């Protein structure tokens, strides 16, 4: 049995089914990250100093623990990837499959670059003896950025499938494939929005 309304809009909702599906999923994701952000607020308002004592040393600001220029650079990478993925969808809307491949490829590369930079950041913390168990600041930092990183990994896997073997659908069902890329884009933009709030919250405040 075929899945209904994958290419055309369902008459009662006015959108294709996968779009309702991805927004429902993103709603659950808002609650997942919302729970962790509220945990951050809870820890923060109860702390006499923030970041406070970490590994036997007192840190007065998050600037003393985290590398703000590197975090800013990673923010720029993620913003750029949001543009490239929306451009990949726009390319399909304009029937330009070659451009789609180029933009989706760039999106995947941006995602990988983000993870490599994050790995360097994590390594810098570990090499200074700063681990998640060494204080509430580090615990919430690693939890939030780690969960966000996992979402980036998930997005890269899906985007790579649509860049590679999944792109065969363009020849058989271009409208459905274009919708798939829009849905993948909605997820990727959500991951970007989470970082847009996570970066100032953890790195700058």
């Amino acid at each position, binding site marked *: 049995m075929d899945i209904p309304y994958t290419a055309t809009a369902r008459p009662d*909702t006015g959108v294709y089914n996968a779009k309702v599906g991805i927004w429902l999923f993103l709603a659950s994701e808002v609650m997942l990250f919302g729970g962790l952000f509220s945990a951050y607020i809870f820890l923060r308002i109860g702390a006499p100093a923030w970041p406070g004592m970490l590994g036997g040393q007192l840190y007065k600001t998050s600037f003393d623990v985290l590398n703000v220029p590197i975090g800013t650079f990673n923010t720029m990478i993620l913003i750029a990837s949001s543009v490239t993925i929306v451009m990949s969808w726009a390319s399909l809307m304009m029937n330009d499959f070659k451009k789609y491949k180029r933009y989706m490829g760039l999106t995947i590369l941006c995602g990988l670059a983000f993870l490599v930079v994050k790995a360097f950041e994590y390594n810098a913390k570990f090499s200074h003896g700063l681990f998640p168990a060494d204080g509430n600041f580090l615990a919430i930092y690693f939890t939030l950025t780690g969960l966000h990183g996992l979402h980036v990994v998930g997005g890269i896997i899906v985007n790579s499938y649509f860049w590679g073997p999944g792109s065969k659908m363009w020849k058989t069902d271009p409208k459905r494939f274009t919708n798939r890329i829009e849905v993948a884009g909605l997820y990727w933009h959500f991951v970007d929005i989470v970082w847009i709030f996570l970066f100032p919250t953890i*790195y*700058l405040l």
Partner: protein
Amino acid sequence: MSDSAHAEDVKKHVRIYIAVFGALAALTVITVAVAYLHLSIVPALIVALFIAGIKGSLVAAYFMHLISEKKVIFALLIFTVIFLVVLFVLTISSYHDQIGGHIVP
């Protein structure tokens, strides 16, 4: 974006996407620059969340096409926002409900 979007409309949107990228990059630079002023926590929080709110809205409105989306998606989002606000209110009010003392950092 609605399913009736045409290729011509998309070409116009591409210019908007580039402009939004410029705005997001500029706002990122501004939020970091303000952070280096090391304001006290309340003004710093207001500025940081205000800028993050604008950036998030730009991504949602233009990249996620919410500016031209159908009612069913907004209905979903209204429920999401309500539940998120309840989650935050419950958490913060539970902080004031504890018996004495600070949380050990």
